[in-house]
């Protein structure tokens, strides 16, 4: 475990999963819903940007803006047109919600394959500078940006949840949905905000991770699962828990193949999932004052 390059890789992968897990957490707090479509959102941000640049010959930053807007729209549509009506009809039945979110996941994936094409495309580099040398290892510009943005996003979200009006509302709803509704808090507005902010975080994650190895329309499902796992491992106790979970899952993804061979991470991840889901579904960091 002395190879610096592997640690850098683990950090990069881990930050990506951490951002996805943070997006899960936001939507879970605000709407009590695991949005499995987050992975495909991230995919749309990465793949869409490249497609706009390569196929539509848009310049980089407008392409980024359009792709992120598409993700925000998808997130809002998920909440307003699908999740909310179905929850209203079924009284919040979890099975129906899961089927609905599976349909959304699949629809976003197939829609991206249809619109952007089914080829794997490279991610767009948002910044260009020489790789940073650390010992005998290199930190690529895209990785450096991902690490930096991860820190900024986590600090910003933590501050928002503590200080911002809507942020505090979100936490209140996350603590007790029924009470929040009885108190007359604007629950629907907070839900929509949660979906949109979660979508934005996922979009940033996808956009920044895409340069690492490109992105294809089917990348979303693996991202969804790894992000979810990072959330479950980290827990929902603090805003920082998803980052810890993400880094742990990222470490597994990088170090397990080094020691145990290429196929091992999938088994180890399944094992971790089974252990955590069965024995500690609340994750490493749980909030104790929950009703």
């Amino acid at each position, binding site marked *: 475990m002395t190879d610096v390059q592997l640690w850098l890789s683990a950090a990069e992968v881990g930050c990506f999963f951490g951002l996805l897990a943070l997006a899960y957490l936001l939507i879970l707090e605000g709407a009590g819903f695991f949005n499995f479509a987050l992975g495909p959102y991230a995919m749309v941000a990465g793949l869409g940007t490249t497609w706009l640049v390569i196929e539509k010959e848009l310049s980089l930053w407008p392409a980024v803006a359009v792709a992120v807007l598409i993700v925000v729209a998808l997130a809002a549509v998920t909440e307003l047109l699908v999740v909310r009506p179905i929850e209203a009809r079924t009284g919040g039945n979890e*099975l129906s919600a899961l089927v*609905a979110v599976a349909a959304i996941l699949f629809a976003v994936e*197939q829609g991206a394959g249809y619109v952007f094409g089914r080829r794997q495309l490279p991610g767009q580099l948002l910044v260009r500078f020489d790789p940073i040398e650390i010992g005998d290892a290199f930190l690529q510009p895209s990785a450096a940006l991902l690490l930096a943005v991860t820190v900024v996003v986590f600090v910003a979200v933590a501050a928002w949840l503590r200080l911002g009006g809507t942020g505090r509302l979100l936490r209140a709803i996350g603590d007790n949905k029924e009470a929040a509704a009885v108190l007359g808090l604007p629950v629907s507005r907070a839900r929509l905000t949660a979906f949109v902010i979660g979508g934005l975080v996922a979009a940033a994650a996808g956009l920044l991770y895409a340069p690492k190895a490109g992105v294809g329309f089917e990348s979303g499902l693996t991202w969804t699962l790894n992000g979810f796992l990072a959330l479950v491992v980290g827990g929902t106790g603090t805003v920082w828990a998803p980052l810890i979970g993400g880094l742990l899952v990222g470490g597994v993804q990088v170090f397990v193949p080094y020691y145990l061979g290429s196929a091992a991470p999938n088994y180890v991840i*399944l094992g971790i999932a089974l252990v955590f*889901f069965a024995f500690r579904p609340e994750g490493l960091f749980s909030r104790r004052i929950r009703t």
Partner: protein
Amino acid sequence: MTAVTPEVGGTAGGSSAGGPAAGPPGTRGTGVRVWPPLGLAAVVAALLLVWVGSNGYRQDLGVLAATYALIALGMYVPFVMAGSLSLAYSAYAGIGAYAVGIVSRDTGWPLWVGWLAAPLVSAALAVVLGLATRRLSGFYLGAVTLLFATAFETWLVDADGITDGSRGIGGIRNLSVFGWSPDRSQQLIMATVLVLAVAFALDRLRQSPWGVLVRTMREVPAVVEATGVRVPVLNLVALGIGAGIASLGGCLFASFVRGVTPETFTVNIVFLAIFMPLIGGVGTPWGAVVGALVVVELTLNFPAFSDSGTLVLSLGVLVILLVAPRGLLGYLDALRNRLAAGPLTGLLPRSSPGSSSPAGRSSDG
């Protein structure tokens, strides 16, 4: 959480073929309505077989539809009946296909040995996975079973000695039953009969006392526990039966196509298999069969949707979830009742998709 009528369950009672919406579902299984669905399905199947004829490509489509139907029927058991959404069905279908492939490659035994072994192996695996995940439900169960499906795919590539790695097993022998090897047309007819038989059996099972018990369990487990039945055991049995049926789909596909690779049954098939009963109608196992036909037609045989078949399909499923939760058969049925019973009946609550139908509350009996 209190016993809310789940969406799928709310329609499960109300939309099955025929009968006014009253009483718990178990009481409606009278002889009169046993045969019409099977008879109707047999007629439709026969017409489809005539359409296929000896066209090799249509035979492939037919077998694919039968494969999808078996996987969807397998998933139907725990999903619609017991309310647990396991997403590992690509693995069970894969086990079926590889069982046939391995029997063909490594032994001199007839292929149907694989057909017998696969459901047992799949059921056993489903029970083990069910035990490992017995405390999970909803999203957690969905995620962990999906992770299992991905890990299984990796294993298929990785276990070179057993599965021949990413090359897969090709050149599978022809199916032969006691010296008789059916040609492709005959195999398709046998596949069709198998699907009809499984759907019919599940329909009967659904209405049997056991089926009522399982469906009650998903809505109010406490009631079932009170009768002395262990809910976890019931759940495991449902998972095992479902996995066994799905693996038959894999056996069928590998025997007919005479090859299997790790990419034959990916997690995509799991999504399609969730959608099939929704499209056809969750009220009856026949819905899964109808859904399989729709999926094959949309994704493979509909020229206008050549590239967008799966997209149209997934959007269509969203629409169905939102505005037509009873699926195609549910609506055909409602239409038929309306026509049969006159305009007044059509105004009864069960025709409105949003409200929970009285029959759905089967648990109050």
